[in-house]
């Protein structure tokens, strides 16, 4: 999968915002065929912009002060192939959850394109979106919250099939439920079918949540911090399950995580987000061993190491991520950047291949100095 390009170089984010909402030509021509072999990547996000309006106070509205916007996602591009796992890494408020919610269609994109097997799904009406939703499934962070406590495992896994009208009768659905549970590593499935969530451990609950996604036969899984609520001893098991789903079932997985160690271990590619932009992306090994953006370098330096002898030299950034309503001019990172120069205060750097790395690696960083 490394022969295909991992990342699409983004155009200017501002330009993308301008030609918003206009559906891509692909959407007009080809009807929604999730299974069509188009040769296009499984997921291709181009110049995606998601802004939320900030509620104005009455006085501000009366004074006709301009409405302000939260620049949650501000022009990001990437693509994900089948069988590939990509980690979206960054601090809270960097826009990683908004990115995933926009891809899912829970939040409407302000601009840009989201192509699923070549079909632009950004701004697609609900009716046309519904059959496509089967192809994209979500795994949430907290399996203590995401499962209905009054539903038995059987009902929880059956529910999405009822929504999508799959399997004629209860009897037809049963083997599908069993297969999904076993695919999620709950074997033998019969042992779990009639249990309630409170009878399961955290790891088992998350596997039920994964089975609920798998029962629809998705091609793309979006996982939002899938293990951060789980105990250390079971995290590796759930991550290995995701790993096997992409290897054996050829699914594409987009995983949100704040844990760079996890990303380094399980993902093929890592995209580091800061204030609504991807500031660095490339193969996991490249990002971890050869970071080029000062933000990535700082993030990596503060990850605690297992070995107490590995004297950490944490490069601690002061303050916190700026307000996404009032994005800094020039490079968004410059107010916290330890190496910022004059140019950084005025010119917004685009993602490009850094001087120190080969163009063939797919490694890109948005820094004037890289």
């Amino acid at each position: 999968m490394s022969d295909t390009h991992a990342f699409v170089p983004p155009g200017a984010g501002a330009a993308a915002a301008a030609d918003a909402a206009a559906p891509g030509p692909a959407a007009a021509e080809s009807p929604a065929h999730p299974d069509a072999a188009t040769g296009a990547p499984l997921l291709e996000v181009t110049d995606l912009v998601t802004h939320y309006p900030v509620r104005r106070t009455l006085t501000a509205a009366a004074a006709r002060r301009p409405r302000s916007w939260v620049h949650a996602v501000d022009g990001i591009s990437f693509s994900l192939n089948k069988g590939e796992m990509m980690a979206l890494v960054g601090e809270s408020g960097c826009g990683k959850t908004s990115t995933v919610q926009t891809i899912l269609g829970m939040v409407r994109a302000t601009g840009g394109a989201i192509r699923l097997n070549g079909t632009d799904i950004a701004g697609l009406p609900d009716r046309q979106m519904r059959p496509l939703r089967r192809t994209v499934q979500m795994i949430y962070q907290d399996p203590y919250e995401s499962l209905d406590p009054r539903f038995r495992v059987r009902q929880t896994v059956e529910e999405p099939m009822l929504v999508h009208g799959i399997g004629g009768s209860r009897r037809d659905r049963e083997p599908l439920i069993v297969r999904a549970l076993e695919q999620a590593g709950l074997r033998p499935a019969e042992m779990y079918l009639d249990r309630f969530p409170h009878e399961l451990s955290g790891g088992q609950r998350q596997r039920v949540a994964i089975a609920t996604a798998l029962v629809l036969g998705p091609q793309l899984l979006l996982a939002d911090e899938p293990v951060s609520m789980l105990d250390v001893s079971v995290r590796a098991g759930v991550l290995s399950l995701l790993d096997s789903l992409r290897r054996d079932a050829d699914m594409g997985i987009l995983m949100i995580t704040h844990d760079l160690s996890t990303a380094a271990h399980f993902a093929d590619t890592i995209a580091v987000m800061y204030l609504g932009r991807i500031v660095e992306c490339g193969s996991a090994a490249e990002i971890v061993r050869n970071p080029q953006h000062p933000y990535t370098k700082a993030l990596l330096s503060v990850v605690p190491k297992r070995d107490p002898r590995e004297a950490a030299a944490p490069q601690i950034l002061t303050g916190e991520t700026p307000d996404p309503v009032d994005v800094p001019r020039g490079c968004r990172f410059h107010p916290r950047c330890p190496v910022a120069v004059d140019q950084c205060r005025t010119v917004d750097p685009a993602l490009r291949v850094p001087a120190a790395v080969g163009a063939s690696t797919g490694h890109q960083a948005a820094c004037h100095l890289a």
Partner: protein
Amino acid sequence: MTSLLEVEDLHVWFEPPHAAPVHAVQGVSFGLNAGERFGLVGESGCGKTTTILALMGLLPPNASLAGEVRIGGTNILAGGEDSVRPFRWKDIAMVFQGAMNALNPVKKVGWQIAEPMAFHGVAEGKAALKRAGELLELVGIPARSASRYPHEFSGGMRQRASIAMALACEPKILLADEPTTALDVMVQAQILELLTSLSDQLGLAVLLVTHDLPVVAQVCNRAAVMYAGEIAETGPMEELYHNPRHPYTRMLFAATPDLYGEGAVASIPGAPPRLDAEITGCAFRPRCDIPIDRCETDHPALLQIGIDHRAACHRATERAVAGPPPIGKDTAR
């Protein structure tokens, strides 16, 4: 030499109304010296939070306890609430889990930090508020922020403020329960650096409770790994990582991904046992990869392995316990 804090054979039982009592802490002993950073590590339900709540005398009414907790030689558990109160906050203070919820949302931050000072006769009125400002400066927040409300603070600032609050009465021991769990990596690094520098500067003994082994590895000198209400292994951090003598310690490290580690990350099969029934033999046996017959019947006691290094495993002195020597250690770098 006696330690600043000594915990000896601490037991805690919870008695739920309609169920069997839960033996949450089962004979935990450890000591803490001035300026030392000690980690208490384990999975959820292993008894680490219950242990430190017992040290603060903050267990719910349905808990009963046994054993001794000595501060400067005095057993603070001897006479219930009356014997703990003089020590709480003045000698031993705590930073609670969940920075967001530990502060009162309708009181100004400075006022909240000053409140315990008056209660314990450290300072009052204007003097207390002035000291609250100084404490905020100490934890890296401008003193003028004392007149702000918690919602005006970010998560990291709230956690700093709750550390300042714990330091109000100049305690010698600071208990921190998962102080960085809800925070971002960069803010986590800031808070851990703060805790480290406070213990270095003020000679504060820090007891860090967390499930995050790498955090303990980077911050603490010594640690205890807890399992099913007991200490499975305790010793200097380096020993625990490079020379683990309890299979659980080894497997816990192996289950933790490392940024540059190349070995496979493996989960530990099974789940911890329930604590509402007597456990015969070793509590870890069902999940252990090297059990022997004896583990079924005999409860392993903490064995002395080296200076200050003890492990509760029948095979602690054998080579096999350490497992394959480099646990995901990256040799390429």
